[in-house]
C-alpha cells in the first residue's frame, strides 16, 4: 500500500527558475537567511583571519606594520569589506531578534519595516566603515 502511493508522480514545483524568480522570500526571510550566512562566515573564516591579524599585530612593532601593509592589499580589503558587512548585518539583525524575543515588533507591518531597516543599516554601516578602511 505504501508503494502504490509512492509510485504516484506528484508535481514538484522546485525548478531552478522557480526558485530564483517565482518563489519569493519575504523580507524578514531575507534578513533571517542572511543572518545565518553572515553568522557562518563570521565563524569561518573570519574569526580565524582576525585572530591571525590580532596575533601578528600584538606580537611586535614589525608585526603591527606588516598587518597595516597587509590591510592595504586590494584582495584583503575586499575580504575585510565582506567581514564588515557580515558583522554589521549579524549585529543589526541580532538586535532585531532580541526585540522580537521580547514580543516587540512582531506585527507584520512592523516586522517588514524593521527588516528593511536591518538590511539598509547593514549595507550603510558597511559603506561607512569601508570608507574609513580605504
Amino acid at each position, binding site marked *: 500500500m505504501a508503494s502504490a502511493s509512492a509510485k504516484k508522480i506528484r508535481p514538484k514545483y522546485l525548478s531552478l527558475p522557480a526558485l530564483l524568480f517565482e518563489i519569493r522570500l519575504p523580507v524578514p526571510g531575507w534578513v533571517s537567511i542572511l543572518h545565518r550566512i553572515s553568522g557562518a562566515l563570521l565563524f569561518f573564516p573570519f574569526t580565524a583571519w582576525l585572530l591571525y591579524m590580532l596575533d601578528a599585530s600584538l606580537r611586535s612593532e614589525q608585526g*603591527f606594520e606588516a598587518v597595516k601593509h597587509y590591510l592595504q592589499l586590494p584582495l584583503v580589503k575586499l575580504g575585510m569589506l565582506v567581514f564588515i558587512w557580515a558583522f554589521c548585518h549579524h549585529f543589526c539583525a541580532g538586535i532585531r531578534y532580541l526585540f522580537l524575543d521580547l514580543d516587540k515588533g512582531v506585527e507584520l507591518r512592523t516586522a517588514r519595516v524593521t527588516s528593511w531597516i536591518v538590511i539598509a543599516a547593514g549595507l550603510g554601516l558597511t559603506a561607512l566603515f569601508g570608507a574609513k578602511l580605504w
Partner: protein
Amino acid sequence: MVKRLVVGAHYGLRDWLAQRITAVIMAVYALIAAGIVLNSTPLTHAVWRDLFAQGWMRVATLLFAISLVWHTWVGVRDILMDYVKPDGMRLTLQVLVLLVLASYLGWAVQILFR
C-alpha cells in the same frame, strides 16, 4: 490521549538563553572596542599594545572570546541540525566545529596572556 515524555534537562532553553546573553555581551564589547579604536587615531603599535596590556581589556576580551565560542556553537549547531541530515556526517561536522572553536579559544588566550 498522548502522554508526552519530557526528556533532557531543558538544554534547549538553556542554549537559547545563552545565545542571547552572549550576544548582548559581545554587542557591548564591540561598541566599546570600536569606540576606543576609532577615537585613537593614529593607531600606532604602542597604543595598540598598551590597550591590550591593561588588565580590564584582557579580561573583557577573554569574556568576549568565551561568549563568541558559546554563541557560535549554538548557532552553527542549529545550522547543522537544519541542513545536514545524515547522522554520521552531522556528528563529524559538529566535532570538527567544536575542535575549531576550542582552537580559537586557545589561540585567543595565548594572544592575550603571553
